[in-house]
């Protein structure tokens, strides 16, 4: 395990080390101490390494991640895992707004709650939140899966495309063009896999699926009020 003191050595030195890791690196386990809510921790990684941040992070931790597994042993700030391509981010505490914004792939797990706009414009990422998500979650979600074991706030899935949402608890309200969908066997199987990978013991059968009603896909004057 390589330990890096962020408070002492700073962000630039941390990224110089982490970005130097390649596909065949032997230094696969990293620990970042003293993060103190700093922004842009462990961004742009592209190697099969595991980074554990001991404490809470600021904006954009794990932004644009590829391959790496990032554990946040605390709470995560706005835009964590934004535009992630692959790999994994596991947040022990809560996540702030914009979690996984525009992320294309990989898995993000939140053990606590996620705030507003969780999965905004998601483009293929899977997000599993053990607790609740805030308002406008998955706004304009394009693809991927958002799993919420608790409740969802207002306007879930507003103007979404083909992303899927699974919510176990209450949904305060659905956004424009988002509707309740049938849970078929393939969805149960998909959800089972995601819950397992996210270390969540909820039962897939307890969830309701939501997705696009596809009424806003091509402009229709009768839907003008929904735009």
């Amino acid at each position, binding site marked *: 395990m390589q330990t890096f003191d962020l408070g002492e050595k700073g*962000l*630039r030195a941390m*990224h*110089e080390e982490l*970005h130097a890791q390649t596909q065949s690196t032997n230094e696969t386990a990293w620990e970042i101490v003293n993060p103190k809510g700093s*922004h*842009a921790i462990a*961004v*742009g990684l*592209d190697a099969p390494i595991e980074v554990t941040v001991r404490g809470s992070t*600021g*904006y*954009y931790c794990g*932004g*644009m991640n*590829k391959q790496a597994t990032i554990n946040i042993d605390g709470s995560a700030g*706005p*835009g964590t895992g*934004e*535009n992630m*391509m692959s790999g994994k981010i596991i947040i022990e505490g809560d996540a702030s707004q*914009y979690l996984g*914004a*525009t992320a*294309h792939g990989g898995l993000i797990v939140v053990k606590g709650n996620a705030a507003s*706009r969780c999965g*905004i*414009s998601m*483009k*293929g990422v899977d997000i599993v939140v053990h607790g609740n998500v805030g308002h406008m979650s998955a*706004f*304009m979600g*394009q*693809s991927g899966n958002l799993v919420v074991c608790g409740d969802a706030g207002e306007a879930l899935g507003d*103007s979404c*495309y*083909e992303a899927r949402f699974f919510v176990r608890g209450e949904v305060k309200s659905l956004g424009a063009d988002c509707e309740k969908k049938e849970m078929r066997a393939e969805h149960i199987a998909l959800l089972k896999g995601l819950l397992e990978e996210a270390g969540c013991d909820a039962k897939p059968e307890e969830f309701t699926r939501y997705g696009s009603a596809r009424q806003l*896909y*091509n*402009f229709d*004057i009768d839907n*003008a009020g929904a735009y």
Partner: protein
Amino acid sequence: MTDQKPPHTTPRQSATFSPDVNSDIRRAAATGIYDIRGGGAKRRVPNFDDLLFMGASISRYPLEGYREKCETSVTIGGLHASNPIELDIPITIAGMSFGSLSGPAKEALGRGASMAGTSTTTGDGGMTQEERGHSTKLVYQYLPSRYGMNPDDLRRADAIEVVVGQGAKPGGGGMLLGQKISDRVAEMRNLPKGIDQRSACRHPDWTGPDDLEIKILELREITGWKVPIYVKVAGARPYYDVTLAIKAGADAIVLDGMQGGTAATQDVFIEHVGQPTLAIIRPAVQALQDLGMHRKVQLILSGGIRSGADVAKAMALGADAVSIGTAALIAIGDNDPKWEAEYNKLGTTAGAYDDWHEGQDPAGITTQDPELMARFDPIEGGRRLRNYLKVMTLEAQTIARACGKNHLHNLEPEDLVALTMEAAAMAQVPLSGTDWYPGKPGTGF
């Protein structure tokens, strides 16, 4: 005698309800949707044609054309980036998306720009191999939609342009109708084929300058502080927007006036929101000067730049470089009268064709239709763009030499006069034949 009709006036059209206005009303009534089109503002607004250079005579001495050197190079983004962009000419190619343009059209832009020693820019839809491969200097746009946004491409870019706004639609998002969402475009944007694509107007993970500062930090850390970070803003409130972009840490500002084009937006947006290019440059330069950043943070002006005269005038007013979009498309063959018969079939005429979003471009540039695309030769297109860029540069040099300058960036506002009161006020240069412009400090007007 009795069958003679009483005299009556000739038929008179209303200035308020003109034939154009009436056709807009009928179109709205028939379709129930606002008019969407490409391009920039078509209305006449005060512009660079309303300015003139005074030239040199006895009090100033000109340089000999073609023999005494007039430099044109510019370095962009040296403030924070270890690898700033070095351009031979101060005319860059503006961001235009693959999706709105065909792959070969993007290739032609890359070829032409590279041959002329300047940069080209991606757009809302990601970076294509054609474009990266044929552009020696490629600026990667970072847009609200993040369509096709990929860290590998980010690391392959020579600069990053964080797009906050566009002159054609300050405060608006994009639109790409279903006809243009081909398989390839759909795949790059993670969208179902054939749907109307709506682009967001705000970035999904930040709002305002305090957040932007953190976003810029993230982009710099990912790219190792190597490449410059531009911030592109529409000509909305240029003094404040430029001030805040600098405070947020930008290396360069791209400022786009209302004549700047778009692939597709509501006509009402294009014609009624934003300010003319001529009006936004002085407040932007003032902001740079107030922060001591003029010529340190570069200002790239765009929106209706057409000729070397426009380039020279923009630079005299304080820009470090300009950017062209619509002009580059015309150079490579957009709206060419040789396709007149086909424009007529689409109910329009060469020069007026602006339904780029419909994907039926006879010139094969703003389309994803394989048959139409095949009409366009990227090598010839590239050559035409190179020629045009060279001519613009020669024209700008001609003017600069006539004003006694050995570098384009030595042109000054004091080299200019204005032909109209409006232009004098906006450019803050004297009305021709006077030493006065409206709003000149100490004149009481």
